[in-house]
């Protein structure tokens, strides 16, 4: 079988097109599109105004508190240095914040599809987030961690897909 014959045979084979996708499978792939959305893009999803402020507020509050604690300790340290001979360091009180780490991690994302009594399909996008705040005081070897789980359930229109 020479190259020319191989090419002809190859062209004959190509005439046999793969079977078209079953209808149900096409629908499945359309639904699967959401799962294909990379996680990084999920984080960039535009939120309603109130949600943005809520998210900002949730982080601003502990961050502000940590900053205030840091300032107070810093100021207290200067004062303490001036009276170091009179008072032991142990009574200075408060944390000296060396490091504040904040993280907002997407733990899980999935879709739930249900059918209303009238037969109308509804879809909910469920996301599980984990917020974490870590405050470290190296001089005292203290690390304070706060974890807050958050579940978002957002209805999504089918037409969106």
């Amino acid at each position, binding site marked *: *079988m020479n190259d020319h014959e191989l090419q002809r045979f190859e062209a004959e084979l190509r005439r046999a097109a793969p079977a078209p996708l079953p209808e149900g*499978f*096409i629908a499945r*792939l359309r639904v699967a*599109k959401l799962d294909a959305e990379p*996680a990084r*893009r999920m984080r960039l999803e535009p939120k309603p105004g109130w949600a943005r402020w809520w998210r900002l507020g949730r982080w601003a509050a502990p961050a502000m508190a940590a900053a205030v604690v840091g300032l107070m300790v810093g100021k207290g340290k200067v004062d303490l240095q001036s009276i170091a001979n009179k008072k032991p360091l142990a009574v200075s009180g408060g944390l000296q914040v060396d490091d504040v780490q904040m993280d907002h991690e997407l733990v899980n994302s999935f879709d739930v599809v249900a059918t209303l009594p009238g037969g109308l399909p509804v879809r909910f996008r469920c996301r599980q987030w984990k917020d974490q705040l870590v405050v470290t005081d190296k001089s005292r070897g203290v690390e304070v961690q706060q974890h807050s789980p958050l579940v978002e359930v957002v*209805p*999504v229109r089918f037409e*969106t897909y």
Partner: protein
Amino acid sequence: MNSGSKHELPAESDWEQWIARHAPALLLFARQQTNRDADAQDLVQEAVVESWRRQSQDAPPPLALVYATIRRRAIDLARRDGRRAGREVAAHQDRPECWFDAGVEERERNMLIQKAMSHLPEIYRQVVTLKVWGGLTFGEIAEALEIPANTAASRYRNGLIELRSLTKEVFI
């Protein structure tokens, strides 16, 4: 309702076009790897989703990656279910589902090709499928099947020769 979610999803047209263009060949490849059509559909869906998720940019995933994922998942599935031997035996049997378009004019011819393909050794069938219907280059086939490109080329040639001898009643 979240009407803004369109912006961060793969563009509707990109996704639809990519699926329309490549999914039939992906499903054909997956059907050859499994016993059941439902398993084949699962493999394609999982591989497509996984491959799109791995992409750091909005561009579609490389086809070789999708085929490689289907193949690996099929092996995992066969191992998990202890059906690998059954899968290889079943590859030599007639399948209830049609691998190729069963239009009236081409039905008999395509069924003959399917029958001949199912009698090909798996190593040939994979390469022939990826080259003829998947449209992959030998380099991409090598990547998908984790074999050298030269091996892919020689398997392709041997596979075509064997396939032609099996279909000589149609292709003279």
